[in-house]
């Protein structure tokens, strides 16, 4: 049996110190010496045993928020502290407001999001250090980084705060010729645009545009700032003018849009210029200034031709057709609309095809060319049927139905008016099979009538039954359309009947 060697006993200095001094000595040692010895031991412990330091204890005991604040302050970053503190207070106020309105507040408090607090600490202290040395660019960069970090939707207000700070700082940066200032203006514009304060947004974008004029600055993604400015400015102007058009302030809207198109011209981007003139044209149309609208829209179409942009050409022609239609110049309007249909078909833009065909159908319908009208409505209907968009299908269906009703109304009228047996036979047989009706000898035209759904309408109308139930109209618009058709058709038929009976 082997005995294990005895464990090497370690006598650290602490034990020897303690042995030497602590227990066995008589109480002759004065109190002061005891205190000193205790201090020695404490010191030894502190140096040789890596326990928790005071900071570590504090980090454990206190919240992360407090530690961050204290860390900032002990290095003298009091501005960062004030800012962070104010933000956290604002957060609490927001939460309180949400609670009062009994909204469910999804966001966790800032104190519970150490990564965010860490970011705050990192960038704010750097920004403050740079501010002390008056390196405003560094300040800007740090604040901007924070703004970017908080760009998700729930922290928007933090981002906005830092955009405002950036804006203030950027005005003091003079070295770069105003690039930062321009960027700050862009951010402020965005901020106001998001809040719906379009006038302020436009102001900032104007400043942005002015500062970037003639410069070749690019942003991080490599786009020219000037172009960006033009784009944002145009967008804001357009939104502004939309609002004005809604309020029927046509003159102001047109003035703003003219400004927009001038800026677009300066921006030397053809596409933008075209867009601007398109909206200007629409505004003129709304203001019923047809001639100017036409000239402006013609420029747009020219630009689109230059750019070989079929889509915008289609839009241009459509707008022109609308203007012509409002002017009452139907043949021209029809010409343009046909072009639109052609272009849209070539580009497989079914929606455009549908819209243009419906417009064409409307025009023909108004003029009394029912067969043509129904032909175009059929086109529209076919296109939408391909799209399988129930809303459009229903809409065109009703249009088609009305046109068809118009179309056969004349024949039926004539049969009723002629008041002879053969005519009655024809009418009865039509009522029997509902597929087609023989041409009236006087008119001598062949009219075919398919038994599609609108046949039901017509049937219902003649029998004074309103068969709306056959259609599954969920949308109010279609419902109105349908009702319109249903009420409209029997009126005519009855009129026809009355005149026949007389």
């Amino acid at each position: 049996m082997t005995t294990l060697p005895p464990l090497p006993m370690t006598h650290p200095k602490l034990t020897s110190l303690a042995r030497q001094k602590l227990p066995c000595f008589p109480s002759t040692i004065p109190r002061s010496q005891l205190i000193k010895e205790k201090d020695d031991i404490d010191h030894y412990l502190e140096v040789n045993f890596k326990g928790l330091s005071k900071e570590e204890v504090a980090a454990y005991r206190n919240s992360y928020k407090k530690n961050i604040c204290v860390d900032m302050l002990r290095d003298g970053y009091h501005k960062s502290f004030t800012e962070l503190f104010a933000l956290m207070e604002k957060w609490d106020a927001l939460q309180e407001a949400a609670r009062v309105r009994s909204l469910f507040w999804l966001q966790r408090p800032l104190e519970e999001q150490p990564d965010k607090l860490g970011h705050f600490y990192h960038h704010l202290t750097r920004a403050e250090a740079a501010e002390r040395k008056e390196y405003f660019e560094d300040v800007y960069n740090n604040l901007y980084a924070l703004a970017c970090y908080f760009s998700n939707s729930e922290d928007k207000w933090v981002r906005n705060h830092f955009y405002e700070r950036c804006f203030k700082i950027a005005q003091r940066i003079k070295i770069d010729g105003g690039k930062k200032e321009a960027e700050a203006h862009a951010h402020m514009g965005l901020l106001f645009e998001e809040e719906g304060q379009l006038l302020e947004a436009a102001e900032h974008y104007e400043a942005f545009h002015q500062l970037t004029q003639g410069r070749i600055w690019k942003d991080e993604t490599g786009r020219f700032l000037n172009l960006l400015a033009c784009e944002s400015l145009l967008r804001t102007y357009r939104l502004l003018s939309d609002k004005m058009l809604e309020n029927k302030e046509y003159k102001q809207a047109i003035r703003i849009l003219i400004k927009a198109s001038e800026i677009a011209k300066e921006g030397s981007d053809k596409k933008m210029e075209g867009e601007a003139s398109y909206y200007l044209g629409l505004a003129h149309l709304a203001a019923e200034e047809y001639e100017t609208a036409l000239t402006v829209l013609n420029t747009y179409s020219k630009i689109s031709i230059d750019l070989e942009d079929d889509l915008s050409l289609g839009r241009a022609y459509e707008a022109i057709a609308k203007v012509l239609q409002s002017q009452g110049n139907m043949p021209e309007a029809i010409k343009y609309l046909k072009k639109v249909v052609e272009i849209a078909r070539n580009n497989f833009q079914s929606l455009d095809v549908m819209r243009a065909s419906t417009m064409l159908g409307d025009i023909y319908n108004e003029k009394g060319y029912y067969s043509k009208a129904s032909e175009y409505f059929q086109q529209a209907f076919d296109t939408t049927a391909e799209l399988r968009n129930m809303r459009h299908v229903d809409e065109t269906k009703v249009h088609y139905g009305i046109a068809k009703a118009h179309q056969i109304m004349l024949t039926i009228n004539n049969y009723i008016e002629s008041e002879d047996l053969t005519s009655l036979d024809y009418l009865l047989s039509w009522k029997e099979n509902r597929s087609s009706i023989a041409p009236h000898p006087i008119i001598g035209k062949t009219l075919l009538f398919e038994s599609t759904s609108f046949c039901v309408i017509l049937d219902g109308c003649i029998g004074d039954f309103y068969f709306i139930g056959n259609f599954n109209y969920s949308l109010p618009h279609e419902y109105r359309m349908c009702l319109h058709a249903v009420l409209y058709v029997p009126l005519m038929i009855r009129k026809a009947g009355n005149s026949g009976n007389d």
Partner: protein
Amino acid sequence: MDIICPLAVPKGRRLCCEVCEAPAERVCTACTVTYYCGVVHQRADWDSIHEKICQLLIPLRTTMPFYNSEEERQHGLQQLRQRQKHLIEFCYTVAQKYLFEGKHEAAVPAALHSLRFRMNLHGLSSVELVPAYLLLAEASLGLGQIVQAEEYLSQAQWTVLKSTECSYAIQSLLHRNLGLLHIAKENYEEARYHLANDIYFASCAFGTEDIRTSGGYFHLANIFYGLKKLDVADTLYTKVSEIWSKYLNNRYQVLSEARIQQIDLLGKRFETDTGLDEAQEAEAIQILTSVWNIRESTSDTAPQKTIFVLNTLVMLYYLMMHSSKAQEYAERAFGLAKEHHLSVHEQSTIQELLSLISAEETHPVT
């Protein structure tokens, strides 16, 4: 001032010195309830606080009169408690004022009184004791007795640690004093940590821009100034003077609005005041004067900052109704502004202040 013989005191009754708790040999003849070990302590106590509270102590230290009913007894107890509370507050404020005036020696007896009454009222381990400990610590620091101060502060810190609910204001005060202690021990790392805590707690209690937070900033600035980190110190000093300037200007606005609203029919002079208690006024003077002294040394490079502090001082003295001092500082500021050819705007603000003060002087207090 009567001499008493400790041996002649009835058995079981021990008379202690009010200041050092040694066996007493003298008694105050005015109240006959306060005892001292010797003339020195008696004089110290008299000068510090006893003169002001001598008569107030009598009901507290004599036995309660005999009450006939429970109701009366309760009422008497209630009254006693009220008196004690009043004395606590009174002694505390007096001690604080002494401290800000730099009379540390005088502050000790007052603070001790405050502490003793607190112990009576709240018990030994209550958070209420902390302010008194802090005062004592501050006084000891001022007297250079660092060990003593540390003892008091440790006591206070331990009390705060043990208590679960301790107001932010008290924690802030505790950390401020710990910071001062470490400054005295020249342990600047620790001092900065504690002062940072102080500012944090004060901000939680009063907001970041409150005058009660400014003290922390001021001491922190002093540390950085001592460490020759002048740019940091500079921003901190600016912060401190901004806080005070903002407060005083607001105060002035409020007062002048009130003055406009109530038109004095009797032609009574409208009193101005700072809205601060004495201790805070003393603190304001101390802080602003030392900031001004520091600014003075750099006034060649940044005269605006000096003038800003001077303007704040002028406003302070004006509100405290020290016209002569206000005048003096205002003239100094004016001279400085002229010397450095500052903008018309700044000169005109000082002019305004000057005319305000002289208007005050032409209608002296009757």
